[in-house]
């Protein structure tokens, strides 16, 4: 039986990546994610993997896409400013369907902001940071154990759907230490991208137009295929034809939107009969859960929904759980980003109350508890 260990969130992300089969890491130092780069530089050589500290975050994401194209699982880790620099190539990975994992340990932004303070202001950037419609999956660990679990899941989803997957943590989740019992690596389910059997007749982007995922050949094995950020047809070569472009973009989008029910991942507590639904994620959800439990003890029918997948946004779940609610509260460390999606989904069922904390501190449970009591009146 694997023993318990006191582990940091960033460390758990790295161990998760290694267990998922990480073979290549390229990154650039940035608080509060640097521990991930440091641990990768230490652990990867042990397993024959490669680590490189690139000249900037633009180079980092470019390098991991290159590595992934040779068939290796590749990851980078960064925070807000670096994540902003990575956007163009995140879109490149999304459009060329190259699986990569990006860990974004959020910090107060915008700009240099407060590097050592937690925040959740990159929610919309994680979805819409790069230009154009594009599929992306964003997971949000809520504790150190989930840093391990969701990084493994991030690789599995990236490999399964050939999309970039962002693991969205924050300075608290990344730096705090918790007792963690990790599974034995042999028992962890790891997925690998589907590869073509032989080079002859290989069409790198041939797949079911309704969200199909093409087989992915590695570079250097005789397929000699072409990858371009230009819109391309099934052969991978550039094409500007209207129907080709339409077919490509809709297929790319459907890869994620069609599979939202499978990608969906969340935790609920006492939501069966809840009148006040609190929707949150990451470190804000820790304080929110404490507030919900206290309210319950005080006889208020509060319920907690903690999202572990932020994108694709689990609309059905939020719509379902908010049906009986008098109010839906969304505590997050920004001025309202997840709240937009909740408002869009809840619609006129119930009022959505944004609880934004933007001073660099975590929520105190009582701050959320007060709002619950206010809404319960």
């Amino acid at each position, binding site marked *: 039986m694997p023993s318990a260990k006191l582990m940091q969130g960033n460390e758990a992300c790295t161990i998760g990546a290694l267990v998922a089969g990480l073979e290549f890491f390229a990154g650039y130092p940035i608080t509060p994610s640097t521990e991930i780069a440091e641990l990768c530089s230490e652990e990867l050589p042990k397993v024959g993997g490669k680590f490189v500290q690139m000249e900037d975050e633009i180079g980092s994401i470019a390098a991991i896409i290159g590595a992934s194209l040779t068939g290796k699982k590749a990851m980078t880790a960064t925070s807000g400013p670096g994540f902003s620099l990575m956007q163009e190539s995140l879109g490149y990975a999304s459009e060329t369907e190259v699986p990569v994992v990006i860990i974004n340990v959020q910090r107060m932004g915008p700009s240099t902001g407060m590097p050592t303070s937690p925040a959740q202001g990159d929610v919309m950037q994680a979805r819409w940071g790069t230009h154009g419609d594009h599929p992306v999956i964003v997971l949000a660990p809520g504790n150190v154990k989930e840093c391990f679990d969701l990084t493994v899941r991030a690789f599995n989803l990236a490999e399964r759907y050939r999309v970039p997957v962002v693991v969205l943590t924050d300075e608290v989740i990344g730096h705090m230490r918790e007792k963690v019992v990790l599974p034995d690596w042999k028992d962890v389910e790891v997925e690998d991208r589907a590869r073509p059997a032989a*080079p*002859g*007749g290989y069409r790198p982007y041939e797949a079911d137009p309704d969200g199909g995922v093409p087989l992915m050949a590695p570079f250097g094995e*005789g*397929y*000699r295929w072409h990858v371009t950020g230009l819109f391309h047809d099934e052969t991978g070569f550039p094409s500007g034809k209207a129907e080709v472009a339409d077919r490509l973009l809709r297929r790319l989008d459907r890869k994620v939107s069609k599979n939202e029910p499978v990608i969906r991942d969340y935790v609920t507590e006492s939501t069966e009969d809840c009148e006040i639904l609190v929707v949150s994620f990451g470190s804000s959800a820790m304080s929110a859960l404490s507030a919900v439990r206290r309210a319950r003890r005080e006889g208020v029918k509060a319920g907690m929904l903690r999202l572990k997948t932020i994108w694709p946004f689990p609309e059905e779940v939020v719509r379902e759980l908010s049906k009986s609610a008098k109010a839906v509260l969304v505590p997050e460390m920004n001025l309202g980003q997840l709240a937009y999606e909740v408002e869009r989904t809840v619609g006129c069922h119930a009022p959505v109350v944004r609880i934004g904390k933007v001073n660099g501190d975590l929520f105190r449970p009582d701050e959320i508890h007060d709002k619950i009591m206010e809404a319960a009146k």
Partner: protein
Amino acid sequence: MSDKKSYVHVIREKWCKGCNICVAYCPKKVLTLVNGKVFAERPHDCIGCRLCELRCPDFAIEIREASAVPEPEEETTVDYSIPPEATHA
């Protein structure tokens, strides 16, 4: 001189864009443009220097010695019965 080699000018008209580089630089004025495509007007003057071939931006001209036997196609490790870009049945 009797042992003067003679050359064959293999021209890929589809690729030639009539840029005139080969015509201008042929030391023996062998080439010319006809309807915007290269044409070997005086092939017997060709001395096989291959400047046209080397400088052609479109790979549209190739000089072969008339007597030369084409090189054997060296086998590759991977079977390419169907080229990667084959349209599917």
